[in-house]
């Protein structure tokens, strides 16, 4: 077993996958904590599925699908942010429309494409085991950008996210910050679609963060803890998927949920224990 494990790390594809998982979890830990704190999970789902339209059109035109997805998802993200600023539009309905429109466009255009996109499946379910050097550079660049932005503007981001109106009354650049962040969400989603696919990408942005949220209510700690849980879960998932020969993306997410469940149980037992102690003292 140990020998098998160490020989595993001699495979380029496996070390690449592992590197991708670690780097991806850094950016997902950061931007995902923002998504969870601001309750933007549904918005993120909308952006994810809208990007499928971009993939379909890119296939049809013979362009790079990741580029198509990026353009589509950033535009739809900016659109959602713009709509949510208008008080006369119901944001969740607008997202629902965009969500299905993106999928519809994607399906129509891939269908119209001769030769019918054979690796379309890899966009739906991801393929972390086939990540390229370019993919690694891209997700690495995103992680660096996010680390810089969130360390330099941590408080500004936090204050605007918590109380937009108050931030406006202090003349903070609320709109600029919001548009930049939603674009970063869109880019993070697109780059991670390569790894775990459209259907599962939202889990990278929410499950480790929710697990972290069980242990701390402090934004900065949620970020660090979710990176930790994300890396542990992805590594575990990759190993299990390799040994049992099952799809890696799905296995990683399964491990995420198991860790979440264990964390919940652990926290509940701790709370019970401290309550018991308090009762005894009375």
């Amino acid at each position, binding site marked *: 077993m140990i020998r098998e494990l160490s020989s595993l790390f001699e495979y380029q594809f496996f070390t690449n996958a592992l590197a991708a998982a670690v780097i991806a979890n850094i950016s997902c830990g950061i931007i995902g904590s923002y998504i969870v704190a601001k*309750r933007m999970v549904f918005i993120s789902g909308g952006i994810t599925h809208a990007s499928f339209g971009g993939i379909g059109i890119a296939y049809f035109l013979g362009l790079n699908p990741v580029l198509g997805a990026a353009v589509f998802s950033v535009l739809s993200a900016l659109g959602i942010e713009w709509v949510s600023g208008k008080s006369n539009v119901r944001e969740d309905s607008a997202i629902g429309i965009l969500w299905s429109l993106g999928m519809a466009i994607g399906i129509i255009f891939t269908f119209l494409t001769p030769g019918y996109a054979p690796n379309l499946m890899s966009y739906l379910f991801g393929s972390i085991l086939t990540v390229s050097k370019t993919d690694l550079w891209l997700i690495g660049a995103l992680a660096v950008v996010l680390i810089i932005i969130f360390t330099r503007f941590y*408080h500004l981001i*936090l204050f605007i996210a918590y109380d937009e109106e108050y931030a*406006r009354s202090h003349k*903070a650049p609320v709109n600029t910050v919001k548009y930049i962040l939603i674009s970063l969400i869109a880019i993070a989603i697109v780059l991670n679609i390569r790894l775990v696919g459209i259907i599962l990408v939202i889990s990278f942005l929410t499950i480790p963060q929710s697990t972290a949220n069980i242990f701390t209510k402090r934004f900065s700690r949620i970020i660090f803890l979710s990176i930790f849980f994300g890396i542990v879960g992805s590594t575990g998932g990759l190993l299990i998927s390799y040994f049992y020969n099952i799809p890696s993306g799905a296995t990683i997410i399964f491990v995420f949920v198991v860790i979440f469940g264990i964390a919940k149980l652990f926290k509940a037992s701790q709370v019970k224990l401290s309550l018991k102690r308090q009762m005894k003292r009375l």
Partner: protein
Amino acid sequence: MSNSPIVSLKGVNAGYADEVVINDVNLDVFPSDFIGVIGPNGGGKTTLIKVILGLIKPISGEINWNKADGILHIGYLPQTNFNDKYFPISVKEVVFSGLMSKKNFIVGYKKKDEEKIHKVLELMGIPHLAHKNIGELSGGQMQRVLLCRAIISEPGLLILDEPNTFVDNSFERDLYDLLKELNKEMAILMVSHDVGTITSYVKTIACVNQYLHYHKSNVITQSQLDSYNCPIQLITHGKIPHTVLGDHNHNHSHD
């Protein structure tokens, strides 16, 4: 103190979408003012405040903010707090956000800021809550935290939209005394429905009901209120000496 207004509104009309809520408002706020804003529900008090904060642009008319030395800081306590109660932010961080300004958006805590935060928390009697998450606070505690946020920057103008909604009455009295103290350093504009109580603390009264009538004294009579088209009853709970309510009409409120 200087004699030019720090905020001045001239013929301001403002509202939402297609609805004009306040009409032809003229108001000058001077550095040492303590203005009590009264008026019926839906009269436009909160709207007026948002115009002064720059959150709502006037449909027509003019508003100017001045300060001799740089930009005017305004501290603000909102009437209702619709923010997510489970948002991951601590009391200390919320209070710190009051120091955010055009010149100062990106830095972290400095030692000086830590001291300021501690000082205002002490002033509001909640230093023990500093490291709590906002989700763990009661309504009144949250109100005090938001008061800390409003005053921490030592603003030139402090705007309070019904500061007494959640706090208990012993703290309410402390709060008004504190405001009186703060008024030596800053202008205050305070909305309240507790007309009786505020008249003994404020210097002037603004009645807002679509129009604004500025009453340059803290003594007001029921007939004056009626002439301002401001349907408010003066006698509240007999908490305050009737003399501040004016000479003739204070005991007619029941008719």
